[in-house]
Every structure is written in C-alpha cells, then in structure tokens.
C-alpha cells in the first residue's frame, strides 16, 4: 500500500472511531441500547465465524455456549459474591472447557454429522439450564446480576455500558483478525479447502479443528459475560436453538470469511429484528423468510460474491 493509501486508511479509521465514541452523546437511549446488543452479539458471531468460514463447519451450539458464559458469571456473582470483573476469565474458561469436552470428539466428524452433534450439545445445555433448578434456578432464571464496576463507579446505563462493549468489540475484532492472519488461519483455510492435502503438507488437522472450536467457545463465553452484566437477568430461553440460528445467520450472511462482513451482518440483522419487533409473529415470519431466501439466493453471503468477481478478473480468467 502506498503512503497516501495508508494515511487515508488512518483518517477513515479515526473518523469512524470518533463517530463511534461520540455516538451515545447524540443518539437516543433506545438506539444506544440496540447498539450495545449489536456490539455484544459480534462476539458469538465472530467466534462462530472461526468455525464456519475458516474451518468449514456449521455449529448450532453457539447460543448454548453464549449461555454458558452468561450463566457462569451470573452464578459466580449472585451466588458466590464474586465481583463481576473477576468472573470474566472463569466464564470464558468454563465455556471453552465445556465446548471442548462435549464437542472435541465431534469436530473430527464430517460436516453434516458435526452439525447434528452441535444440535445435541445445544439441546443438552439448554435442558440442563432449564432443569437443574438447584444450580440455575431453572425457568425462573437468575435475577439481579450486578453491574460491572470499578470501585464505586458502575456501568449501569446503556450509555456507560456502551464504552465497555465498544472497547471489547474493537479488541475482539482486532484479535480475530490477528488469529486468522496467523498460521492457524492458514491451516484452517487449507483444511477446509482440502483436508487430505492439508495433512499431506504437515498440517495437524485434528488439533487445528479443536483449536477453532475452543476459539469459537472463548468468543461466545466472553459475549455471554457482557450480556449477563448488561441485561442483568438470564433465562434459558435466551440461549436456545433460536439464538444459535441467529448467530449462524449473522456469521454466514456477511460473507463466510470476512470478519468485517460478519460485524456488518450482525448490525443489519439485529437492527432489522428490532425494527420488526412490534410486529410479533410477522417479525418472526420475516426473519424466517430472510433466512430462507438468503440461503436460496446468496448461499455464500453477499460480500463474497463481490470479492470473487474481482479476483477472477485479476487472474485473467473472466
């Protein structure tokens, strides 16, 4: 890239950052509230992206894993009195451990079987959350989750929480890009293109897949942590199959290997769901239609169609 291009990128980035930082001062509370959800959801969506775009695996368990992160912090803070910040690492760790324990063996399965296994994991986690009343309060959920705070300062309003979610979302984005730019990213793309060829160039396929699974769980757990301390109430129905489908759609719609695309798709789809909320069942019908039509006509996400055309032209083929 030339110097002027680098400079331009920096200007654009700075402008975007400034807009994002100034945003809560101008926007109505409701919009900031939505923005928080969008930013929080980018975490499980990007996490899922490690599996879908880069490893070629579909998972329908991300909603449950998001829930594990949320419930871990909810229980540690309400039942054992931990301060919220201290529970971040345990929440993420718990999600990763559970995901690898339940799904580690399944990730070596052929694609369709892996999807099936993740459905099993999703349902098992949801059923346990719903029925292990002594631990999770079951259908009553966990209430009065404390807000995250430093000393006396508490992040109790959408505007205050916004800066945390923005910071976390930006860090998550940068980290995700670094991960896919690392050798692991190369290995994952290689094995998703041709697993046999990948192992023939010394890629440890099994290990790479489990790592991808662990990463997807870590991102989900982190997102769950934020969610629990934002809405301050968790219930198993927030982490069911519908949530998993939602994250999957967001992850697939942005273009299957584009982190930026996933963020964009999350923003668009969440805004759409919010906009349609007053319409009740019709909102859900619209949502289902978006899924269906999207898969019928844009199976690889909208952004990849654009990318492919540019690349083929460069190679002199079209």
């Amino acid at each position, binding site marked *: 890239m030339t110097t002027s291009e680098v400079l331009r990128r920096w200007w654009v980035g700075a402008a975007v950052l400034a807009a994002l930082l100034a945003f809560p001062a101008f926007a109505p509370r409701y919009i900031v509230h939505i923005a928080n959800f969008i930013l929080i959801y980018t975490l499980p969506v990007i996490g899922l992206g490690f599996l879908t775009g880069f490893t070629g695996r*579909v998972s329908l368990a991300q909603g449950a894993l998001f829930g594990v992160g949320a419930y871990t912090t909810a229980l540690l803070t309400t039942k054992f009195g931990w301060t919220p910040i201290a529970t971040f690492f345990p929440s993420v760790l718990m999600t990763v451990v559970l995901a690898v324990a339940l799904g580690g063996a399944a990730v070596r399965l*052929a694609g369709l079987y892996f999807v099936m296994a993740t*459905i099993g994991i999703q349902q098992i986690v949801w059923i346990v959350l719903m029925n292990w009343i002594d631990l999770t309060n079951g259908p009553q959920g966990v209430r009065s989750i404390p807000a995250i705070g430093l000393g006396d300062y508490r992040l109790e309003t959408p505007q205050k929480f916004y800066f945390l979610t923005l910071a976390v979302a930006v860090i998550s984005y940068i980290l995700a890009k670094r991960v896919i730019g690392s050798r692991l990213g190369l290995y994952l793309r290689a094995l998703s293109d041709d697993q046999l060829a990948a192992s023939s160039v010394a890629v440890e396929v099994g290990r790479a897949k489990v790592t991808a699974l662990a990463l997807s769980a870590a991102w989900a757990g982190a997102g769950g942590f934020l969610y629990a301390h934002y809405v301050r109430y968790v219930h198993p129905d927030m982490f069911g199959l519908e949530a998993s*489908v939602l994250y*999957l759609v967001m992850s697939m719609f942005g273009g299957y290997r584009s982190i930026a695309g996933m963020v964009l798709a999350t923003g668009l789809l969440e805004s759409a769901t919010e906009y349609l909320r007053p319409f009740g069942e019709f909102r*859900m*019908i619209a949502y289902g*239609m978006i899924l*269906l039509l*999207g898969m019928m006509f844009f199976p690889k996400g909208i952004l990849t169609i654009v990318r492919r055309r540019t690349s083929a032209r460069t190679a002199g083929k079209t």
Partner: protein
Amino acid sequence: MFDQLLIGGLATGCIYAVVGLGFTLVYRTLRMVNFAQGQVFMVGAFLGLSIAQRVHLPVLPLLFVVGAVAFALGMVLERLVFRRLYHNHEVFVVGSIGLGIVLTNAVRVFFPEPVPFPKVFGSHVVQIGTARFQEAYFWVVVSTLVLVVLLHAMFAYTRGGRALRAVAADAEIAGTVGVNVNRAIALTFGLSFAVAAIAGVLIGPLYFVSFDMGDMVGLKAFSAAVFGGINSIPGTILGGLVIGVLENLAGGYISSAYKDLVAFVILLIMLIWRPTGLLGRDTPVKV
C-alpha cells in the same frame, strides 16, 4: 407403572419413528437433512384439526386427506424452495430452518394458543395388564404399523417405489436407465411431508396441538433417525421406538425434568461412536 410407561413410550416412539422417516427418506435421496420436518408434523396436526372441526370425517379419510395435501405441499415446496438449497449441507440446513420458522409463525398467527383436538379415535379407555390408556394410543401404534407396511410394499413392489430406491442408491445411474430423477426427488419430499403430517394427526387427540409442538418432536425424531441410522428405514423406526420408550422410562423412574435429555445424549454419543447409526451402512459422506 412399567406397563403404563412402556405403552406410552411406544406411542410417542411411533410418532418419532414416523416423523423420523421423513428425515430418512430425504437423506437417502439427497444426503441432506430437512430441518423443517418437525414443523411439517405440526402443520399436519393443524390441518387435521381444521378439517376435523368443520367436517365430520372418520379417521381413515381424515388421515388420507391430510396426507394427500401434505404430499402435494411437499412436492410444490421441493420445486420452489428446496431445489435452490442443494448447494451444500450448511445452506440446506439453515434454509430449511428458515422455512420451519416461517411455518411455525404462520400457524401462530392463526392459532396463538394451544387447541384441543377432536377425539377422532374415540375416547374409550382400554386396559392391558396393569396399564390403562386411551384407545388413541392403541390406534397410533396400529396406524404406524400399517403405514410402515404400506411404505415397505410400495418400495418393494411398485415401479414407482423401486425408482425412488434407485435414485436413493445412485441418482446418476438411475438417471441413465430412464428414471426421472427430478420427479423422484419431488415425490420423495412429498412422501416425507405426508408421513410427518399423518403423524401430526395421529398424535393430535392425545395432547393439545400448538404451534410449537413441532420443535421438540422434530429434533427428537431427528435424533431417532441418526440413532437408528439416518440412511436406514428400519433403523429409523427402531430408533424412534427405542427413544420413545427410553425417555418415558427415564421420565418415570429417574426424573421427569430430564426426560428430554435422553434423546440428545443418545444423539451425541451415537455420532461420536458410530455416526452411521445402529443399522446404517457406510455411505460416503463428503468430509
């Protein structure tokens, strides 16, 4: 108590088996899983309900009408919708889930609350051993049996059925010997919709029908199919019965809270241990 649980389990097991058959039929032909199958089951129940509430049909014609309508619906949807989802598994899965969501909520618009189903099977209470149950349970098992026998006869002895089997075994070769593969696929979908819808009518009188009844049933029928072998018809039936009985026994003897867990734990263990299922054969699945 055991007899009671066993009979109850057999009845739900039959439902899982029949709905599961829908999964299996589509999978054998296309190597794809249609996740709207549970919602088709639900639609069938409501279809039956709507008809039974207006017209006083005896059971057999009711089942037949619902089956026929669902069959037609299946063929139409294959043409309009499913055909565009064949790119790969992931696309098909997500697309069919989207379809399921549309069906669930479309029904929800008209029936937001659970509705009781007319007792088309009569309301006698039968006693076998120490178990007492509504005669509807008995009819569920019998109907399933008849359905399975009819399907088997169709596949084994009719030309159409043999054509479907040929396409399931190897679509390319079937095409070269003159089988209309596209029509066979459409018929397979029609069949999978029909059986699920019929199952919906069968279960209707036993419980209330509601727009979300397809969700859990669909997932458990799916687990049953995977457990028994998703490319094996007898395997799916066996899987459905086993899961139905096991979950009922677990619910009775261990705890009713974790009853639902049975199907999914079995699913997960089966996939890790033997993905092709109990009776499934090793079909090449793209990795």
